[in-house]
Protein backbone atom coordinates (compact mmCIF):
# COMPACT_ATOMS: atom_id res chain seq x y z
CA UNK A 1 0.00 0.00 0.00
CA UNK A 2 1.29 3.34 -0.88
CA UNK A 3 -0.18 6.71 -1.50
CA UNK A 4 -0.60 7.50 -5.15
CA UNK A 5 2.86 8.31 -6.35
CA UNK A 6 3.16 11.46 -8.34
CA UNK A 7 3.85 10.40 -11.90
CA UNK A 8 5.56 13.58 -12.75
CA UNK A 9 8.16 13.59 -10.08
CA UNK A 10 10.31 15.99 -11.93
CA UNK A 11 7.56 18.47 -12.37
CA UNK A 12 6.75 18.36 -8.72
CA UNK A 13 10.30 18.85 -7.66
CA UNK A 14 10.57 21.77 -9.97
CA UNK A 15 7.41 23.22 -8.61
CA UNK A 16 8.57 22.86 -5.07
CA UNK A 17 11.87 24.53 -5.64
CA UNK A 18 10.90 27.37 -7.84
CA UNK A 19 7.23 28.06 -7.71
CA UNK A 20 6.41 27.63 -4.07
CA UNK A 21 9.20 29.56 -2.44
CA UNK A 22 7.33 30.36 0.72
CA UNK A 23 5.81 26.99 1.46
CA UNK A 24 7.40 25.36 4.45
CA UNK A 25 9.21 22.22 3.41
CA UNK A 26 9.71 19.00 5.36
CA UNK A 27 6.00 18.37 5.15
CA UNK A 28 5.55 19.45 8.73
CA UNK A 29 3.67 22.32 10.37
CA UNK A 30 2.59 24.40 7.48
CA UNK A 31 1.02 27.29 9.24
CA UNK A 32 4.36 28.51 10.47
CA UNK A 33 5.35 31.51 8.51
CA UNK A 34 9.09 31.88 8.02
CA UNK A 35 10.32 35.18 9.40
CA UNK A 36 13.07 35.61 6.89
CA UNK A 37 10.77 35.54 3.92
CA UNK A 38 9.51 38.87 2.79
CA UNK A 39 6.04 39.04 1.31
CA UNK A 40 4.65 42.47 0.57
CA UNK A 41 1.90 43.16 3.06
CA UNK A 42 -0.84 43.31 0.46
CA UNK A 43 0.36 40.45 -1.70
CA UNK A 44 -1.60 37.71 -0.01
CA UNK A 45 -4.70 39.76 0.16
CA UNK A 46 -4.35 40.23 -3.56
CA UNK A 47 -3.84 36.52 -4.01
CA UNK A 48 -6.95 35.79 -2.06
CA UNK A 49 -8.93 38.29 -4.04
CA UNK A 50 -7.65 36.83 -7.26
CA UNK A 51 -9.32 33.54 -6.47
CA UNK A 52 -13.01 33.05 -6.66
CA UNK A 53 -12.97 30.44 -3.97
CA UNK A 54 -11.33 27.21 -2.87
CA UNK A 55 -11.99 25.43 -6.17
CA UNK A 56 -10.37 28.27 -8.05
CA UNK A 57 -7.31 28.14 -5.81
CA UNK A 58 -7.05 24.38 -6.15
CA UNK A 59 -7.41 24.57 -9.90
CA UNK A 60 -4.63 27.10 -9.98
CA UNK A 61 -2.34 24.91 -7.91
CA UNK A 62 -2.99 21.97 -10.18
CA UNK A 63 -2.65 23.84 -13.45
CA UNK A 64 0.45 25.63 -12.30
CA UNK A 65 2.23 22.33 -12.15
CA UNK A 66 0.96 21.03 -15.45
CA UNK A 67 -0.85 18.39 -13.53
CA UNK A 68 -3.68 16.40 -14.93
CA UNK A 69 -6.88 16.99 -13.03
CA UNK A 70 -7.68 13.32 -13.45
CA UNK A 71 -4.51 12.30 -11.72
CA UNK A 72 -3.88 14.81 -9.00
CA UNK A 73 -1.51 13.97 -6.24
CA UNK A 74 -3.78 14.70 -3.35
CA UNK A 75 -1.17 14.81 -0.66
CA UNK A 76 1.02 17.26 -2.55
CA UNK A 77 -1.91 19.47 -3.47
CA UNK A 78 -3.20 19.30 0.09
CA UNK A 79 0.19 20.34 1.34
CA UNK A 80 0.29 23.36 -0.92
CA UNK A 81 -3.30 24.26 -0.31
CA UNK A 82 -2.93 24.17 3.44
CA UNK A 83 0.27 26.16 3.10
CA UNK A 84 -1.71 28.95 1.46
CA UNK A 85 -4.44 28.73 4.04
CA UNK A 86 -1.93 28.64 6.84
CA UNK A 87 -0.11 31.70 5.63
CA UNK A 88 -3.32 33.56 5.10
CA UNK A 89 -4.49 32.72 8.57
CA UNK A 90 -1.08 33.58 9.93
CA UNK A 91 -1.49 37.02 8.45
CA UNK A 92 -4.87 37.20 10.13
CA UNK A 93 -6.62 37.61 6.83
CA UNK A 94 -10.25 36.97 7.15
CA UNK A 95 -10.70 33.69 5.40
CA UNK A 96 -14.03 32.59 4.04
CA UNK A 97 -15.10 29.40 5.74
CA UNK A 98 -15.42 27.75 2.34
CA UNK A 99 -11.63 27.58 2.19
CA UNK A 100 -11.46 25.71 5.47
CA UNK A 101 -14.19 23.31 4.46
CA UNK A 102 -12.17 22.50 1.37
CA UNK A 103 -9.07 21.95 3.49
CA UNK A 104 -11.09 19.50 5.52
CA UNK A 105 -12.31 17.73 2.42
CA UNK A 106 -8.77 17.42 1.09
CA UNK A 107 -7.61 16.02 4.37
CA UNK A 108 -10.38 13.49 4.30
CA UNK A 109 -9.52 12.38 0.78
CA UNK A 110 -5.87 12.18 1.72
CA UNK A 111 -6.59 9.99 4.69
CA UNK A 112 -8.80 7.74 2.63
CA UNK A 113 -6.07 7.34 0.08
CA UNK A 114 -3.73 6.20 2.79
CA UNK A 115 -6.04 3.41 3.84
CA UNK A 116 -5.11 0.00 2.52
CA UNK A 117 -7.27 -1.16 -0.33
CA UNK A 118 -9.44 -4.15 0.38
CA UNK A 119 -9.10 -5.40 -3.13
CA UNK A 120 -7.69 -4.27 -6.42
CA UNK A 121 -11.08 -4.45 -8.07
CA UNK A 122 -12.84 -1.93 -5.91
CA UNK A 123 -10.06 0.58 -6.25
CA UNK A 124 -11.20 1.95 -9.56
CA UNK A 125 -14.75 2.51 -8.47
CA UNK A 126 -13.98 4.01 -5.12
CA UNK A 127 -11.27 6.48 -5.86
CA UNK A 128 -11.84 8.96 -3.05
CA UNK A 129 -10.74 11.73 -5.39
CA UNK A 130 -13.59 11.13 -7.81
CA UNK A 131 -15.97 13.68 -6.35
CA UNK A 132 -13.30 16.35 -6.05
CA UNK A 133 -12.17 15.75 -9.61
CA UNK A 134 -15.72 16.00 -10.86
CA UNK A 135 -16.21 19.28 -9.04
CA UNK A 136 -12.94 20.72 -10.29
CA UNK A 137 -13.78 19.83 -13.86
CA UNK A 138 -17.24 21.27 -13.60
CA UNK A 139 -15.95 24.45 -12.02
CA UNK A 140 -13.32 24.84 -14.70
CA UNK A 141 -15.97 24.62 -17.42
CA UNK A 142 -17.86 27.55 -15.90
CA UNK A 143 -14.77 29.52 -15.07
CA UNK A 144 -14.01 29.41 -18.78
CA UNK A 145 -17.60 30.14 -19.69
CA UNK A 146 -17.44 33.25 -17.51
CA UNK A 147 -14.31 34.42 -19.29
CA UNK A 148 -15.93 33.85 -22.66
CA UNK A 149 -19.00 35.70 -21.51
CA UNK A 150 -16.84 38.69 -20.67
CA UNK A 151 -15.63 38.65 -24.27
CA UNK A 152 -19.09 38.69 -25.81
CA UNK A 153 -20.03 41.82 -27.70
CA UNK A 154 -21.64 44.00 -25.08
CA UNK A 155 -23.90 47.00 -25.28
CA UNK A 156 -22.32 50.30 -24.17
CA UNK A 157 -18.89 48.75 -24.32
CA UNK A 158 -18.51 47.29 -27.80
CA UNK A 159 -21.63 48.46 -29.54
CA UNK A 160 -23.92 51.38 -28.81
CA UNK A 161 -27.53 52.06 -29.59
CA UNK A 162 -27.98 54.26 -32.63
CA UNK A 163 -30.77 56.70 -31.82
CA UNK A 164 -32.26 59.73 -33.42
CA UNK A 165 -34.78 62.12 -31.97
CA UNK A 166 -38.01 63.05 -33.55
CA UNK A 167 -38.00 66.45 -35.18
CA UNK A 168 -41.47 67.19 -33.87
CA UNK A 169 -41.04 69.75 -31.09
CA UNK A 170 -43.81 68.63 -28.83
CA UNK A 171 -42.77 65.11 -28.26
CA UNK A 172 -45.16 63.35 -25.99
CA UNK A 173 -43.40 60.82 -23.89
CA UNK A 174 -45.72 58.52 -22.13
CA UNK A 175 -44.52 58.28 -18.61
CA UNK A 176 -45.61 55.69 -16.11
CA UNK A 177 -48.08 56.76 -13.49
CA UNK A 178 -47.17 56.38 -9.87
CA UNK A 179 -49.52 56.53 -6.92
CA UNK A 180 -48.70 57.64 -3.41
CA UNK A 181 -49.63 54.20 -2.25
CA UNK A 182 -46.98 52.72 -4.58
CA UNK A 183 -44.41 54.89 -2.85
CA UNK A 184 -45.57 54.02 0.62
CA UNK A 185 -45.53 50.32 -0.16
CA UNK A 186 -42.12 50.55 -1.80
CA UNK A 187 -40.54 52.06 1.28
CA UNK A 188 -42.30 49.70 3.65
CA UNK A 189 -41.18 46.64 1.77
CA UNK A 190 -37.68 48.09 1.59
CA UNK A 191 -37.59 48.69 5.33
CA UNK A 192 -38.87 45.22 5.92
CA UNK A 193 -36.29 43.75 3.61
CA UNK A 194 -33.44 45.64 5.16
CA UNK A 195 -34.51 44.63 8.64
CA UNK A 196 -34.78 41.05 7.41
CA UNK A 197 -31.45 41.22 5.72
CA UNK A 198 -29.91 42.57 8.86
CA UNK A 199 -31.27 39.55 10.63
CA UNK A 200 -30.16 37.49 7.73
CA UNK A 201 -26.63 38.75 8.02
CA UNK A 202 -26.57 38.02 11.70
CA UNK A 203 -27.81 34.54 11.08
CA UNK A 204 -25.25 33.94 8.41
CA UNK A 205 -22.59 35.06 10.84
CA UNK A 206 -23.82 33.14 13.81
CA UNK A 207 -25.94 30.36 12.57
CA UNK A 208 -24.33 29.02 9.42
CA UNK A 209 -23.41 25.47 10.21
CA UNK A 210 -20.70 25.46 7.63
CA UNK A 211 -19.13 28.53 9.15
CA UNK A 212 -19.49 27.12 12.63
CA UNK A 213 -17.70 23.98 11.50
CA UNK A 214 -14.85 26.14 10.35
CA UNK A 215 -14.85 28.04 13.64
CA UNK A 216 -14.61 24.85 15.60
CA UNK A 217 -11.85 23.55 13.37
CA UNK A 218 -9.94 26.75 13.84
CA UNK A 219 -10.34 26.42 17.56
CA UNK A 220 -9.33 22.83 17.95
CA UNK A 221 -6.45 23.14 15.57
CA UNK A 222 -4.81 25.69 17.71
CA UNK A 223 -5.21 24.12 21.08
CA UNK A 224 -5.54 20.50 20.02
CA UNK A 225 -7.56 19.70 23.20
CA UNK A 226 -10.54 21.71 24.27
CA UNK A 227 -13.49 20.95 26.42
CA UNK A 228 -16.75 20.24 24.72
CA UNK A 229 -18.50 22.92 26.71
CA UNK A 230 -16.07 25.65 25.77
CA UNK A 231 -17.15 25.41 22.15
CA UNK A 232 -20.63 26.65 22.98
CA UNK A 233 -21.46 30.27 23.42
CA UNK A 234 -24.60 30.43 25.49
CA UNK A 235 -25.15 34.08 24.64
CA UNK A 236 -26.12 32.96 21.16
CA UNK A 237 -29.26 31.42 22.55
CA UNK A 238 -30.94 28.18 21.66
CA UNK A 239 -30.38 28.50 17.96
CA UNK A 240 -26.65 29.06 18.41
CA UNK A 241 -26.30 26.02 20.63
CA UNK A 242 -28.19 23.85 18.18
CA UNK A 243 -26.05 24.96 15.28
CA UNK A 244 -22.83 24.41 17.19
CA UNK A 245 -24.03 20.95 18.08
CA UNK A 246 -24.97 20.17 14.48
CA UNK A 247 -21.61 21.48 13.32
CA UNK A 248 -19.85 19.22 15.78
CA UNK A 249 -21.86 16.19 14.67
CA UNK A 250 -20.99 17.00 11.10
CA UNK A 251 -17.29 17.30 11.96
CA UNK A 252 -17.44 13.94 13.72
CA UNK A 253 -19.15 12.36 10.78
CA UNK A 254 -16.48 13.66 8.49
CA UNK A 255 -13.86 12.39 10.94
CA UNK A 256 -12.35 15.79 11.37
CA UNK A 257 -12.57 15.84 15.13
CA UNK A 258 -12.32 13.23 17.83
CA UNK A 259 -14.56 13.49 20.81
CA UNK A 260 -13.34 11.69 23.92
CA UNK A 261 -14.84 11.11 27.32
CA UNK A 262 -13.07 9.04 29.90
CA UNK A 263 -16.12 8.16 31.94
CA UNK A 264 -19.85 8.75 31.99
CA UNK A 265 -20.62 12.34 32.88
CA UNK A 266 -16.93 13.20 32.82
CA UNK A 267 -15.76 16.21 30.91
CA UNK A 268 -15.89 15.69 27.18
CA UNK A 269 -12.85 16.74 25.18
CA UNK A 270 -12.68 17.60 21.54
CA UNK A 271 -9.53 17.12 19.57
CA UNK A 272 -8.69 17.77 15.96
CA UNK A 273 -7.80 14.75 13.95
CA UNK A 274 -4.43 14.82 12.28
CA UNK A 275 -4.64 16.57 8.97
Amino acid at each position, binding site marked *: MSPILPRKNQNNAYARQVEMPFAVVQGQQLSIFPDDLYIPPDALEIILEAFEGPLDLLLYLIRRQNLDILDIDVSEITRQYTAYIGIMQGLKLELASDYLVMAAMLAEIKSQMLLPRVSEVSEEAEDPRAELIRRLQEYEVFKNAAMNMDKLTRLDRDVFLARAE*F*SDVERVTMRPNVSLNDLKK*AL*ESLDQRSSLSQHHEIYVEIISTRERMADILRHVNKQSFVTFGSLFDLSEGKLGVVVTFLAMMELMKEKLVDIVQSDSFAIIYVRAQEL
Partner: protein
Amino acid sequence: MKSMLLRQIIEGALLLSPTPLAIKDLEQLFSDSERPQRDQILVTIEDIQLDCRDRGYELVEVASGFRFQIREQLAGWMHRLWKEKPKRYSKAMLETLALIAYRQPLTRGDIELVRGVAVSSDMIRTLQEREWIKIVGHRNVPGKPALYATTKQFLNYFNLSDLGQLPKLTVITNIEADGDHSSLGVLESGNIEMIES
Protein backbone atom coordinates in the same frame (compact mmCIF):
# COMPACT_ATOMS: atom_id res chain seq x y z
CA MET B 1 -7.62 58.34 -42.49
CA LYS B 2 -9.71 56.75 -45.23
CA SER B 3 -12.79 58.73 -46.07
CA MET B 4 -15.06 55.72 -45.55
CA LEU B 5 -13.84 55.26 -41.97
CA LEU B 6 -14.03 58.99 -41.33
CA ARG B 7 -17.61 58.93 -42.45
CA GLN B 8 -18.49 55.92 -40.35
CA ILE B 9 -17.04 57.52 -37.24
CA ILE B 10 -19.01 60.73 -37.78
CA GLU B 11 -22.22 58.81 -38.49
CA GLY B 12 -21.71 56.70 -35.41
CA ALA B 13 -20.99 59.65 -33.15
CA LEU B 14 -24.02 61.58 -34.34
CA LEU B 15 -26.26 58.58 -33.76
CA LEU B 16 -24.77 57.93 -30.35
CA SER B 17 -24.89 61.43 -28.94
CA PRO B 18 -28.11 62.49 -27.22
CA THR B 19 -27.32 66.14 -28.02
CA PRO B 20 -26.29 67.79 -31.29
CA LEU B 21 -22.56 67.77 -32.05
CA ALA B 22 -20.70 70.83 -33.30
CA ILE B 23 -17.72 70.56 -35.63
CA LYS B 24 -15.38 71.01 -32.69
CA ASP B 25 -17.07 68.14 -30.86
CA LEU B 26 -16.54 65.95 -33.90
CA GLU B 27 -12.89 66.93 -33.99
CA GLN B 28 -12.55 65.67 -30.45
CA LEU B 29 -13.35 62.15 -31.62
CA PHE B 30 -9.95 61.82 -33.20
CA SER B 31 -6.50 61.53 -31.74
CA ASP B 32 -4.10 64.32 -32.67
CA SER B 33 -2.37 62.21 -35.29
CA GLU B 34 -5.51 61.15 -37.11
CA ARG B 35 -7.61 64.29 -36.79
CA PRO B 36 -9.01 65.36 -40.17
CA GLN B 37 -9.21 68.90 -41.46
CA ARG B 38 -12.31 70.89 -40.67
CA ASP B 39 -13.12 71.01 -44.38
CA GLN B 40 -12.93 67.28 -44.61
CA ILE B 41 -15.44 66.94 -41.81
CA LEU B 42 -17.79 69.36 -43.53
CA VAL B 43 -17.53 67.51 -46.83
CA THR B 44 -18.26 64.25 -45.04
CA ILE B 45 -21.34 65.74 -43.42
CA GLU B 46 -22.60 66.87 -46.81
CA ASP B 47 -21.99 63.37 -48.14
CA ILE B 48 -24.02 61.87 -45.34
CA GLN B 49 -26.82 64.38 -45.86
CA LEU B 50 -26.96 63.51 -49.53
CA ASP B 51 -27.15 59.81 -48.84
CA CYS B 52 -30.03 60.26 -46.43
CA ARG B 53 -32.27 62.02 -48.87
CA ASP B 54 -34.56 59.01 -49.29
CA ARG B 55 -34.23 57.74 -45.78
CA GLY B 56 -36.62 58.01 -42.87
CA TYR B 57 -34.13 60.27 -41.12
CA GLU B 58 -32.06 63.26 -42.03
CA LEU B 59 -28.95 65.00 -40.81
CA VAL B 60 -29.78 68.60 -39.90
CA GLU B 61 -27.92 71.50 -38.42
CA VAL B 62 -29.47 73.11 -35.36
CA ALA B 63 -28.19 75.90 -33.13
CA SER B 64 -25.67 73.80 -31.22
CA GLY B 65 -24.53 71.56 -34.02
CA PHE B 66 -25.55 68.61 -36.17
CA ARG B 67 -27.95 65.86 -35.34
CA PHE B 68 -29.83 63.05 -36.97
CA GLN B 69 -33.56 63.36 -36.68
CA ILE B 70 -36.55 61.49 -37.93
CA ARG B 71 -38.40 63.16 -40.81
CA GLU B 72 -41.36 65.24 -39.86
CA GLN B 73 -43.57 63.65 -42.50
CA LEU B 74 -43.42 60.43 -40.51
CA ALA B 75 -45.01 62.02 -37.44
CA GLY B 76 -48.28 60.15 -37.79
CA TRP B 77 -46.64 56.74 -37.69
CA MET B 78 -44.12 57.70 -35.06
CA HIS B 79 -46.85 58.78 -32.70
CA ARG B 80 -48.20 55.24 -32.72
CA LEU B 81 -44.89 54.15 -31.32
CA TRP B 82 -45.19 56.57 -28.42
CA LYS B 83 -48.76 55.65 -27.76
CA GLU B 84 -47.67 52.28 -26.50
CA LYS B 85 -48.60 51.75 -22.95
CA PRO B 86 -45.95 53.28 -20.75
CA LYS B 87 -43.88 50.72 -18.98
CA ARG B 88 -44.35 50.60 -15.27
CA TYR B 89 -41.50 51.83 -13.13
CA SER B 90 -39.37 49.10 -11.68
CA LYS B 91 -39.45 48.25 -8.02
CA ALA B 92 -35.93 49.66 -7.78
CA MET B 93 -37.12 53.00 -9.15
CA LEU B 94 -40.07 53.21 -6.78
CA GLU B 95 -37.89 52.35 -3.80
CA THR B 96 -35.38 55.01 -4.76
CA LEU B 97 -38.07 57.63 -5.17
CA ALA B 98 -39.74 56.62 -1.90
CA LEU B 99 -36.44 56.88 -0.05
CA ILE B 100 -35.81 60.34 -1.42
CA ALA B 101 -39.35 61.44 -0.62
CA TYR B 102 -39.40 60.20 2.95
CA ARG B 103 -35.77 60.58 4.01
CA GLN B 104 -34.62 63.64 2.07
CA PRO B 105 -32.15 65.12 1.63
CA LEU B 106 -29.90 62.15 0.99
CA THR B 107 -27.07 61.03 -1.28
CA ARG B 108 -26.89 58.22 -3.77
CA GLY B 109 -24.64 56.44 -1.30
CA ASP B 110 -27.32 56.69 1.38
CA ILE B 111 -29.80 55.05 -0.98
CA GLU B 112 -27.33 52.32 -1.87
CA LEU B 113 -26.71 51.65 1.78
CA VAL B 114 -30.36 50.98 2.49
CA ARG B 115 -31.05 49.13 -0.72
CA GLY B 116 -27.84 47.10 -0.69
CA VAL B 117 -27.52 47.50 -4.46
CA ALA B 118 -25.87 50.11 -6.65
CA VAL B 119 -28.24 52.84 -7.81
CA SER B 120 -27.92 53.24 -11.57
CA SER B 121 -27.30 56.63 -13.11
CA ASP B 122 -30.20 55.98 -15.45
CA MET B 123 -32.57 55.81 -12.54
CA ILE B 124 -31.44 59.11 -11.06
CA ARG B 125 -31.51 60.68 -14.51
CA THR B 126 -35.05 59.50 -15.19
CA LEU B 127 -36.26 60.98 -11.91
CA GLN B 128 -34.44 64.23 -12.63
CA GLU B 129 -35.84 64.42 -16.15
CA ARG B 130 -39.28 64.01 -14.76
CA GLU B 131 -38.43 66.90 -12.44
CA TRP B 132 -39.44 64.92 -9.40
CA ILE B 133 -36.04 65.17 -7.73
CA LYS B 134 -33.26 67.70 -7.79
CA ILE B 135 -29.89 68.32 -6.24
CA VAL B 136 -30.28 70.59 -3.24
CA GLY B 137 -26.70 70.65 -2.01
CA HIS B 138 -23.62 68.58 -1.38
CA ARG B 139 -22.66 66.73 1.76
CA ASN B 140 -19.48 68.03 3.28
CA VAL B 141 -17.52 64.78 3.10
CA PRO B 142 -14.81 63.63 0.69
CA GLY B 143 -16.15 63.56 -2.86
CA LYS B 144 -18.86 66.06 -1.95
CA PRO B 145 -21.72 63.79 -3.00
CA ALA B 146 -24.90 65.45 -4.22
CA LEU B 147 -27.88 65.57 -1.88
CA TYR B 148 -31.19 64.81 -3.53
CA ALA B 149 -34.62 66.04 -2.52
CA THR B 150 -38.06 66.07 -4.09
CA THR B 151 -39.41 69.09 -5.99
CA LYS B 152 -42.58 71.15 -6.15
CA GLN B 153 -43.46 69.24 -9.30
CA PHE B 154 -43.32 66.05 -7.26
CA LEU B 155 -45.79 67.51 -4.76
CA ASN B 156 -48.00 68.73 -7.59
CA TYR B 157 -48.04 65.38 -9.30
CA PHE B 158 -49.09 63.61 -6.14
CA ASN B 159 -51.49 66.36 -5.25
CA LEU B 160 -49.80 67.18 -1.97
CA SER B 161 -49.37 70.59 -0.46
CA ASP B 162 -46.37 69.56 1.58
CA LEU B 163 -44.32 66.52 2.48
CA GLY B 164 -46.17 66.15 5.76
CA GLN B 165 -49.06 64.83 3.74
CA LEU B 166 -47.15 61.78 2.58
CA PRO B 167 -48.93 58.67 3.86
CA LYS B 168 -47.72 57.47 7.24
CA LEU B 169 -45.50 54.44 7.13
CA THR B 170 -46.64 51.35 8.94
CA VAL B 171 -44.02 50.57 11.54
CA ILE B 172 -42.59 47.13 11.15
CA THR B 173 -41.92 45.53 14.47
CA ASN B 174 -38.63 43.79 14.78
CA ILE B 175 -38.69 40.07 14.83
CA GLU B 176 -38.10 38.87 18.32
CA ALA B 177 -35.51 36.25 18.98
CA ASP B 178 -37.63 33.87 20.98
CA GLY B 179 -40.18 31.71 19.32
CA ASP B 180 -40.77 33.64 16.18
CA HIS B 181 -40.73 31.13 13.43
CA SER B 182 -40.58 33.55 10.58
CA SER B 183 -36.96 34.24 11.24
CA LEU B 184 -36.21 30.57 10.88
CA GLY B 185 -37.40 30.80 7.31
CA VAL B 186 -34.24 32.66 6.51
CA LEU B 187 -32.23 29.79 7.83
CA GLU B 188 -33.96 27.18 5.81
CA SER B 189 -33.27 28.84 2.52
CA GLY B 190 -29.58 29.01 3.00
CA ASN B 191 -27.95 26.86 5.51
CA ILE B 192 -29.78 23.81 6.54
CA GLU B 193 -29.36 22.01 3.25
CA MET B 194 -25.68 21.76 3.90
CA ILE B 195 -26.30 19.68 6.92
CA GLU B 196 -28.49 17.32 5.07
CA SER B 197 -26.21 16.91 2.13
